[in-house]
């Protein structure tokens, strides 16, 4: 491997096609991604700073942000806890059906969001399989913020599991052995040996689940009820403003969400680097 890598570096220039492939890449990237995203910034620039602030701090928009970010945090936190439990079961234990459960984790990735949306809505509606059980307890899920939360937990789970799983698989079990043979209790070993080496992955999984939840639209709008100032998420508000032809308002909201998404991307990249340093140290 390393010999191949060394050889690769020396004679790179022999390979043809650099100009055309990089050119195609840059052209297509610009046309499909960069120029359209640029239009978003250009459109927002039509608003003065004061107008921009007025749009994004209006009561309805602020409430939508609060709802989107708040529920996304809560859903990501739930996924962090349950996702870690799922990973532990899948990696550390051998039991019948394990492989099937492992495959099930990917369902939210694969299932189109609109399908998840109507399925969850009909499940949690008052006459639904789960909603019917909760109704006598006075708990309403569909058409309330709780419903949005349920949808966000659904779509976020694979992000935590698929990020943490490979790291736990790679954790050197000799470290645990050593810790145990030195007299540490199981709990201390988990907390002092395992947890630190998994921390970057846990945080990355949490951030990815959170980022996905903030932008989520399809699975949420069916179950949300979409009442302004109650259960209206930020992406929906963008769509509504667009339908009212208030393009500048829509882009202002979008810019705030995009900024948050880029911030999350940055955090994830930092975490990745941190994790690489950690892994490097271990080897």
């Amino acid at each position, binding site marked *: 491997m390393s010999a*191949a890598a060394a050889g690769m570096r020396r004679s790179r220039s*022999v*390979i*043809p*096609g650099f100009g055309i*492939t990089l050119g*195609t890449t840059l052209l*297509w*990237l610009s046309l*499909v*991604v960069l120029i359209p995203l640029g*239009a978003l910034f250009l459109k927002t620039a039509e608003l003065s700073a004061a107008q921009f602030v007025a749009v994004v701090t209006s009561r309805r928009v602020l409430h939508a942000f609060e709802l989107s970010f708040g529920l996304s945090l809560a859903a990501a936190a739930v996924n962090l806890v*349950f996702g870690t*439990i*799922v990973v532990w*079961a899948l990696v550390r234990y*051998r*039991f*019948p059906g*394990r492989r*099937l459960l492992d*495959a*099930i*984790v990917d*369902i939210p990735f*694969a*299932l*189109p*969001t*609109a*399908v*998840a*949306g*109507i*399925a*969850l809505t*009909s499940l949690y509606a008052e006459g639904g399989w*789960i909603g019917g059980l909760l109704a006598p307890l006075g708990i309403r899920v569909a058409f309330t913020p709780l419903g949005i939360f349920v949808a966000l937990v*659904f779509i976020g*789970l694979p992000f935590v599991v698929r990020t943490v799983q*490979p790291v736990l698989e790679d954790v050197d*079990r000799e470290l*645990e*052995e050593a810790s145990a043979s030195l007299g540490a209790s*199981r709990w201390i070993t988990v907390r002092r040996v395992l947890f630190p080496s998994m921390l970057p992955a846990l945080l990355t999984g949490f951030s990815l689940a959170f980022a996905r939840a*903030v*932008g989520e*639209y*399809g699975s949420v709008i069916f179950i949300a009820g979409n009442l302004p100032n109650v259960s209206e998420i930020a*992406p929906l508000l*963008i*769509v509504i403003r667009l339908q009212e*032809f208030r*393009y500048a308002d829509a882009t202002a909201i*979008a810019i705030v969400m*995009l900024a948050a*998404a880029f911030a*999350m*991307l940055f955090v994830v990249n930092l975490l990745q680097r941190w994790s690489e340093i950690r892994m490097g140290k271990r*080897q």
Partner: protein
Amino acid sequence: MTVLSRPETVIEAMTEAMTETMSEADLLEPQLMPSAAVPRRAAGVREDPAWVRGSVIAVTVVFLGGFIVLPLVHVLAQAFAHGIRVYFAALSDPDSLAAIRLTLVVAALSVAANVVFGLAAAWAITKFTFRGKNLLITLIDLPFSVSPVIAGLVFVLLFGLQGYFGPWLAVHDIRIIFALPGIALATIFVTFPFVVRELIPLMQEQGTEEEEAALSLGASGLRTFVRVTLPNVRWALLYGVLLCNARAMGEFGAVSVVSGHIRGETNTMPLQVEALYDGYQSAAAFAVASLLALLALLTLFIKIALEARIAKGRTP
């Protein structure tokens, strides 16, 4: 380390999947499992107490069952709740058929676009060194972190009637928004990174030795690509196509913004599901949704098979 351990775990998982499908075969598991799994057990690792083990597995089963499996089962149950005749009547409705056709066309366009782009980008990124490579990779990944709604919005800003190119397009009678080109563009945007992402790590790992050998023996660049590179990456390419296709067929948010929701014309399958559901045609909505759910399940099956294939290709 990660590179080496991955194929082993996949093979282990596959072996296990096989033993699990054979009903009482669990006892055979240790013998059937390749060497990869043995050291793990032989190391004499301290096991968690039985009650911890039991509760962790129980929580996993209940959580995955209740949160993930139940909605999927519910879709299929609702689809057939009014009988098989209603189900097929819903699917053979002209608007639903039009939606299925449109979805297939859009998915084909976005797969084609992403295969060409993916191969070109992966070639440039993995076979050469140049400045700004990491920035380029970040930019390619960008659509993953953009909300689907925003992915649709940007194309409305460009091509909508009040958008930057809107008036010019109107004069020349070219329709992008509320028509196929807009739907395809939005879909290509959201599926942008899928194929490249699968190709880059594999092509990085494979290096350039084989291509160099072919070139030094006098093969042309194109011939080298078709005869050497392409066969080497075919499973990863297929894997990327699979994920790209699933997302393209299922995309809702981005397409919803640019489509205009004209039934029988610009409604893709997910949008048709929404239209039917909002129109209180719940059975029909679930019928169309069940097709998408089956697509998702099929995608997962092929994905597992491909993962095994890719792992096999990596082990010498």
